[in-house]
């Protein structure tokens, strides 16, 4: 069964990028306003799922040749490493550090080690949800 989904495909090409940008925004905004790694990850997944629905799994795999299991592993390691980095500074496990910096282009910006941890969460969420969707989707 082959349906005509030109409209869906054309819209997807634009919408995917909007969702991805929004996901990035949500991710970085997380520490001060609604958002964070979990939602950011889910949004990214939804963008990829949209791509998969509009085109098909094989095409999306060619566009994004990502091994999602590895991605999950990297995310977990990143989260764990952020948490254990505190040992080097001789403070209890999981102590976060933050400060404010004047960055070019951004102005006064807060840099927080929690962001790295959140990035780990982000990677795990994307990795796991995509793993699940991909394996179920490929299973004929």
């Amino acid at each position, binding site marked *: 069964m082959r349906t005509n989904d030109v409209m869906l495909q054309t819209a997807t090409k634009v919408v995917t990028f909007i969702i991805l940008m929004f996901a990035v925004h*949500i991710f970085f905004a997380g520490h001060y306003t609604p958002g964070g790694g979990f939602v950011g990850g889910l949004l990214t997944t939804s963008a990829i799922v949209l791509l998969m*629905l509009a085109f098909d799994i094989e095409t999306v795999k060619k566009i994004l040749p990502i091994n999602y299991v590895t991605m999950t592993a990297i995310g977990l390691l990143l989260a764990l490493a952020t948490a254990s980095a505190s040992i080097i500074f001789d403070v209890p496990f999981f102590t976060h550090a933050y400060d404010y910096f004047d960055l070019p282009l951004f102005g006064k910006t807060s840099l927080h080690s929690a962001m790295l941890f959140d990035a780990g969460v982000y990677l795990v969420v994307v990795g796991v949800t995509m793993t699940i969707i991909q394996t179920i989707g490929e299973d004929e």
Partner: protein
Amino acid sequence: MSFVFLIFVPLLAALFIPLLFKKFGRIHTGWFVLVVPVILFTYYVSLLPTTISGGNLVSEFQWIPSLDIAFVAYIDGLSLLFTLLITGIGALVVLYSIFYLDKHREQLHNFYVYLLMFMTAMLGIVQSDHLITLYLFWELTSISSFLLIGYWYTRDRSRFGALKSMMITVFGGLMMLGGFVLLSIMGDTYSIRELIPQAAELVTHDFFIWALVLVLLGAFTKSAQFPFYIWLPDAMEAPTPVSAYLHSATMVKAGLYLVARLTPVFAISGTWMWLVAGVGLFTMFWGSFFALKQKDLKGILAFSTVSQLGLIMSLLGASAAGYHVDNIAETTFKYAGFAAIFHLINHAVFKGSLFMIAGIVDHETGTRDIRKLGGLMSLMPISFTVAMIGAFSMAGLPPFGGFLSKEMFLTAMLSLTEFDLFSMDVWGILFPVVAWLGSVFTFIYSFYFVFHTFAGEHKPEQLPKPAHEAPIGMLISPVFLSLLVVVIFFIPNLVGDWFVKPAVLAMQPFLYTSPDEINIHVEAWHGPTPELFMTLGIVAIGFLMFWTLRKWQKSYDLFPDTLTLNALYDSVMFMSDTGANRFSRLYMTGFIRSYLVYMFSFVIFIVLGTLFLTDAFAIDFTNLAPVGFYEVVILIALVGSTLTILFSKSRLTGIIALGAVGYSVALFFVIFRAPDLALTQLVIETISVALFLLAFYHLPQISRKEERMRFRFGNALVAIGVGVTVTLVALSSLSQKALPSISEFYKETVYKEAGGGNIVNVILVDYRGFDTLFEIAVLGIAGIGIITMIKLRLTKKEDQHENK
């Protein structure tokens, strides 16, 4: 240098092993691994001068300060001795494994990751001063040894052995945790060092005897004492390097370590002495007796390990007697503790080499069945020499290290008869008698092991491979260990001063204040004492019985197999298996709707029950906000779409209506100013609807029978019950003002302490970072689970395809 972190070095190194295995497949991964124990060993050797002079070192790192849980590495004579054994023999075992395990055929990355994990666990056990972290590492050894024993996981026997060892040692570990908790309640501390000075008060406590027995259960299961030894022979399914490492030098000695470490706490009690010495001695006899029944080379060694561990255990028990003697220097009791540690070193050295030889024989002839082996002496001269040295040391013959420690063992056992406490004067005579009998059998099985393998008639037609000497690399480690066996005999007092005395000081602090006070001088020739005549008896009787072994060995087969402890274990496992199966079949219907009924009824029962019992209903309508227009609209949409699900005739309608429910809830979150929740809920709804649609293709149509589904009274009752429960809880919690809301705390501290503006996110990454970490770990595991489930099914299908 805070050496507490060194415990984790092997674990950290393990992270890189899979990478190294993939990138540098041409080089045997073992070479990279070898670096770790060698470096650690060199570092720990540099701490020797401190312990030789009787000093100690402490290094600690806070883990969970709010619960007073910390990693405290405490290095004194005892822990340093074990540390050196773990890293030193670890290095030799890794070196041996490089030649033993083929880099092309074996999954080296798995093997070395487990091995390094195990190394960290062992280092943690022997250095931890904190009972909780000690327990943590204790169970980590159980898990990593499970993985190592089951390394060849496609073999049934490997999985069986791995499971058995884990069942028994984890059971013991849990008991031990109970003992630790009792100890910490009694002494109000988790630190072993702080418990020791309190020993006199602890013994009067009601819990004392419970703590003692529970801790001993842990030690006995780990050190394979009777009747828990049954896992050790089955653990021999592991690759030989693992057997040499875990089952001679390290893991099985963890129980001995624990007994030695806690001797100052428990020695004051006569029960401790009786239990440890009695069980140890009986195990020694039992193990040595049944070693002769074995036909497998590693089986013989396994039983001999059981027996030798029993020997050391009995000495540790006897050393507790020193607590009750006024003038130790005058008595022979002082030998017990010294002999225990000394024999422990000897055993690690000779048993390590013997296991490696068993592996070499297996590797070069293709079998470990002693009935097929024989006459290898001329074909494998180096292996034969090493095996002979190791076996003679085990039999307690000069000029090998084992002779010295066995003489001291006999001295210690003889001295127990002079002891007039705890009715030793009546039963004490049993100790030297059983010890002597056990030693006779030890002598026989040592000879059995070496001469039935290497002497006698060569039967090449029975061997799967033509026998030849092992490559040089594989021989380095066992040859080195057998050299040590000889060296220890000639410099026993150097070993004594460097390793044994500092360890004895840690074990018997109630007797000595510095290692110099331990005035024990080891001598090979100690005059015509009773021990010497006992040894002569052992050699004479042992040799006679070995000579006639073939005539009476068959009598072992007369023992009925159904009456052994193994049979008991098997039947208990079988019963619990089938029992659990039958029980599960009662309620596992395979329909999700049944499970939902169970879960929801349980929720109603628990929550409503608690509300009733604690009289927690507090419904207060005075402070309610007015209901707005949007809320009514969403509510109608919510109820409408729920009803649509109930009455939908097709799945598609159902899925869409379910999505509508989710979106309506998300809108509620928006109205009540919870943007984070709303955002997450929206995205989740979108993805789950997409997932549903993906799976939709595979779902069967709702059948005609189900279309005319009749009204189910039970289900309706459960559904209404859940609704009522949740409503009641919500109303009650709204009216409950006993405690101030926690949100104020977050509002105040979120910016000040965590430097964030979004409370939800700060809770996730900072206040409750641990939860998040474990949640994503669970998520990752779930993902891997789904992959394996679906991919495994795929490969099965492919197999079927091929078979067609």
